């Protein structure tokens, strides 16, 4: 093997190292910015969590905005509420649920609570 070949091998090696280094240092991939939701079974009711990438950002064990600790009575209720929060976040809006949002989702305080 000639010295020139060896020399160019070293150059190639550095190019590869440099490329690897720059890939390694790239900002986190886009998947980590995506939101998704998960319904949580709380035994006597349901809640939900909103996840960004792999990180839980909102954990909602009780119906948001309502006083007391009222859980969602059905999985479907929790899911559609979480979906509304997701759509707000995905549109760059605040994740706040207003009383009017809950009314639209037909979610109200349980009788007697």
């Amino acid at each position: 093997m000639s010295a020139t070949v060896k020399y160019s091998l070293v150059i190639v090696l550095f190019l590869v190292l440099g490329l690897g280094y720059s890939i390694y240092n790239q900002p986190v991939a886009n998947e980590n910015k995506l939101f998704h939701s998960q319904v949580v079974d709380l035994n006597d009711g349901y809640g939900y969590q909103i996840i960004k990438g792999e990180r839980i950002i909102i954990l909602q064990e009780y119906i948001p905005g309502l006083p007391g600790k009222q859980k969602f009575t059905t999985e479907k209720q929790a899911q559609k509420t979480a979906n509304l929060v997701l759509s707000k976040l995905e549109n760059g809006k605040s994740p706040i649920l207003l009383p009017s949002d809950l009314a639209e989702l037909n979610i109200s305080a349980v009788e007697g609570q």
Partner: protein
Amino acid sequence: MNKRKSYMYKITGMALLAMVITSCSSDDDDDDLGNWVDKSVFDGSPRSSVSGFTIDNVGYMGVGYDGDDYLASFWAYDIEGDYWSQKADFPGTARNAAVGFEIDGTGYIGSGYDGVDELTDFYSYDVASNTWTEIAALPTARRSAVGFGVNGFGYVGTGYDGENDRKDFYKYDPTTDTWTELVGFGGNKRRSATTFTIDGLVYLGTGVSNGVYLDDFWVFDPTTESWTSKLDLDEEDDYSIARSNAVGFTLNGYGYIATGELGGATNTVWEYDPASDEWEQKTSFEGATRQDAIAFSNGSRVFIGMGRTGTLYLDDLDEFFPLDEYDDED
């Protein structure tokens, strides 16, 4: 061959050196201590002039103004778990510039501004049941007051009543649900001042009145209910502490005044040592300059976020590490 080999070693060495140099950020020993770490989760949910309190390891914040609407929603940030939950809505009129404080594990939010009037109504928040209860109203309406809970009582004072800045203080007794006037604050009237509490003593400073940023600094001893003047906030030539709409918090025995407004939003941070009555500048807040932000502190960790800069309302939250070297990549 040997000659070429040594040539190659030289190239290799220089290349490695170049890589090491470019991958290290330069350290500057003149930098102020303190590091900020981004904990934002509230993207798209800007609000300023929110009110809140920290109970155990949970920071509570609610009400506020997002640039269009006065808000009533109320949120809890779990410091350990690093997540938020939306809690029971604040039951009073949506408002901003209210005060929030904690007394023995119960949170309180009241007074403020609903876009038309300065307000007097007050509410307590029970963490265990996630419920609000209206309590006795503050005797006189105001916004941009200071409020703190210490020694089993709540105190609210200074602020703006719609016509004048105020210097009066009221004391709330939760056992009798009554407010009584507390005399003896020797400072000037003001709005948008800041407090922090170290070892049961409450320090009050900053704020603005008639366009003048106040530089007096006070300590309140709740056992004697007396105010004592401390060294002014412009005592040293290099102090630049005076401002309004700042946040105050306590961490590891030191007090801090951070962000705020001084002819425009600022992001500077000053640390107060109660033993020497002296201030030291720390690394400025990493996010955008801001005023009307909120700080959550459980005494050992602190988070600052929300607020606004001009008419841009902010939605981020950062954790502050006052003893760390600044690192701009976290």
